[in-house]
């Protein structure tokens, strides 16, 4: 029994796609912050991806992924009506959401999609949400329409200034932190350097900062320990203790090193795949 793709949209052609997957049991249980493990085909590897949205009535979950290697390229080769072989979840601890006042949600790149699910949760809990999204340029921004539909305060930063502030999300964040007295929490999801930079910006303000770690996983259910990370000097597993942790306590240098573990093999796989399918990725 496969998991059918009921909708697919290439958000950034050849680079970032959104798929809506028929997975009623997972949709029923999914909460913001959860992730799933997806395996595309018989010989595929298990890939962890954050649930960007879910529709309990329709029985679907939404996944946004960046094409970075063979497995995600293979995912991207599927179209509406095709099936993923395995979708397992919802996994990980859901985001801790309570009514706490003003929450700043920062999203970068593909992380904007996951951030949007969490921002939605905070709005539903009655918090004032300021969303900051960032990308290299205007064309690479995601989910801005969805975000502005429920979040009136949306700030944009692009590296080239093609939309919003010219520069990094951290500069926008710093601005807000300097003017707003009462920020209860900052949530950051995106590339590791961005989450690290956000944590560094918020540290002097002593604002609670939550980051979602995208470490390498094999099973996603606590069995293998591949996703372990050092948080506050303690070894924790992103899959069962996280994926969200206190950004001020995460050892980002270690996380970055661990994310490169299989670089060589990933490149080998990708090269083979590109030759085989002669696709443009």
């Amino acid at each position, binding site marked *: 029994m496969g998991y059918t793709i009921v909708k697919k949209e290439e958000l950034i052609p050849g680079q970032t796609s959104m798929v809506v997957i028929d997975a009623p*049991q*997972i949709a029923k*249980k999914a909460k913001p912050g959860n992730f799933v493990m997806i*395996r595309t085909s018989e*010989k*595929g*590897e*298990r890939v962890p991806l954050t649930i960007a949205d879910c529709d309990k009535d329709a029985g679907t979950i939404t996944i946004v992924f960046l094409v970075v290697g*063979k*497995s995600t390229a293979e995912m991207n080769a599927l179209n509406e009506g095709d099936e993923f*072989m*395995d*979708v*397992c*979840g*919802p*996994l990980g601890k859901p985001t801790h959401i309570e009514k706490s006042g003003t929450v700043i949600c920062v999203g970068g790149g593909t992380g904007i999609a996951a951030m949007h699910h969490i921002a939605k949760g905070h709005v539903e809990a009655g918090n004032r949400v300021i969303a900051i999204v960032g990308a290299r340029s205007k064309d690479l921004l995601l989910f801005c329409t969805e975000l502005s539909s429920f979040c009136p305060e949306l700030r944009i930063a692009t590296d080239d200034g093609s939309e919003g502030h010219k520069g990094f999300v951290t500069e926008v964040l710093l601005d807000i932190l300097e003017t707003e007295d009462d920020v209860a929490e900052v949530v950051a999801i995106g590339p590791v350097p961005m989450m690290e930079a956000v944590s560094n910006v918020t540290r002097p303000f002593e604002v609670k900062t939550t980051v979602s770690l995208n470490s390498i996983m*094999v*099973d996603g*259910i*606590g*069995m*293998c*320990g*591949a996703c*372990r*990370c*050092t948080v506050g000097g303690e*070894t924790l*597993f992103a899959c*069962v203790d996280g994926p969200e942790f206190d950004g001020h306590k995460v050892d980002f*240098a*270690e996380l970055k*090193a*661990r994310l*490169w*573990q*299989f670089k*060589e*093999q*990933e490149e*080998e*796989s990708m090269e*083979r795949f590109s030759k085989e399918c002669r696709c443009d990725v």
Partner: protein
Amino acid sequence: MSDKKKKVVRPRTPMPHQDAMKRGTNFSEVALGYSREQALVEAERCLQCKKPLCQDGCPVNIDIKGFIAALVDEDLKGAYDVIRKTNSLPAVCGRVCPQETQCEGKCILGKKHEPVAIGRLERYVADTYAAESACEEVTDLSTCALERDDLKVACIGAGPASLTVAGYLAGRGIKVDVFEALHEPGGVLVYGIPEFRLPKSIVARELGGLEELGVSFHTNWVGGKTITIQDMLEQGYNAIFIGVGAGLPRFLKIPGENLVGVFSANEYLTRVNLGRAYEFPNYDTPAYNARRVAVIGAGNVAMDAARTALRMGADEVSIVYRRSEDEMPARREEIEHAVEEGVRIRCLCGPLSFHGDDKGCLKAMTVQKMELGEPDESGRCSPVCLDGETEQIPCDMAIIAVGTRPNPILLEATPELGLNKWGYIEADPETGETSMPNVFAGGDIVTGAATVISAMGAGRRAAKEIADRLL
């Protein structure tokens, strides 16, 4: 027959093996199995004791004397039927059980001579009489009528404990649904035990046998996440069996443990076995490339990891263990196989720290030299530090195989479940019932990491109790 008592006891029939030098480079099965002649010669060594102690030594209580008698009569089907009465996975057990401490450990012949090779005979029977129709073997019917479609039982986890529960209950006409978190059923049989010790085709055959009995497998269902025990009770399951295994890997809590190149045995074995990393890049899951590998720990899992690393192309693989070879928890046969294949054993070495290069990749580990002291509570001699004596071992991969702790997913989702002081599920030793009525548990999630057959024993006790209550 009359001169049986005077007959000279023949030596135990040796098991044919794949050549040690050759097998270190492939994933094909190491032990090749008996031929018909070898099996018959070995079966005839059995004394057919009036009080067969071997049977008491078997956690699932196989009528060993009975199956060997049938084998001597060349009644393979009869032998298979006898085994299958109590064991749902004979081809697996014949390969991975620690027979030397169980059935064979109790064999009377073993007192003066070598015990009957019960495990090898079990394997022979199971392999030769491969379950063409598992249903027929158990019930004499070609299709299995689920006689009691009003009754259904859920098993969480598709490892040896649950498979035993499923086999037993399905054989008695009860509908069983097995929920597995991974994408393949089998538990440790598929993610943990390597192909060269237990081929996946053998596991698939036994699973197929259970499906023929009417057992349904639901993969990608995580107990406590995709479905909770409360959901199952609401869905009308009459009983639930929890067999989710031991869970999280333990680490050593020493400096450098999160360096790139340091793995848990679970990760390493899961990548290679479940992810078929030995066929990378034909399969997508990669394994880490390493030349010098240190495996920490000396249980069966450590031996599996070391022998796997060798086959994955490492130049040098060492088992690093803080006690001496006599204390090693692995089966003797596994240690011997590892050494024959070229694994080096470094005893009396306790890991102190790992060291990396400027990219955060492992390059060496420092170990503390030890000596043996007084026996500790485990009954084994305790390791004592030799002050100031350390050694640096160059390695670019370390695999930590020092056990597991309970996986929190199902337990956190089910606060009603009573746990023992180590955090494992508390279950009645006779019935397997937990603090929740009609919710049973068995295997590693109750005992901590143990053997396939002890998990099966727990499954069998729980299954009997469930059947007694429902039928």
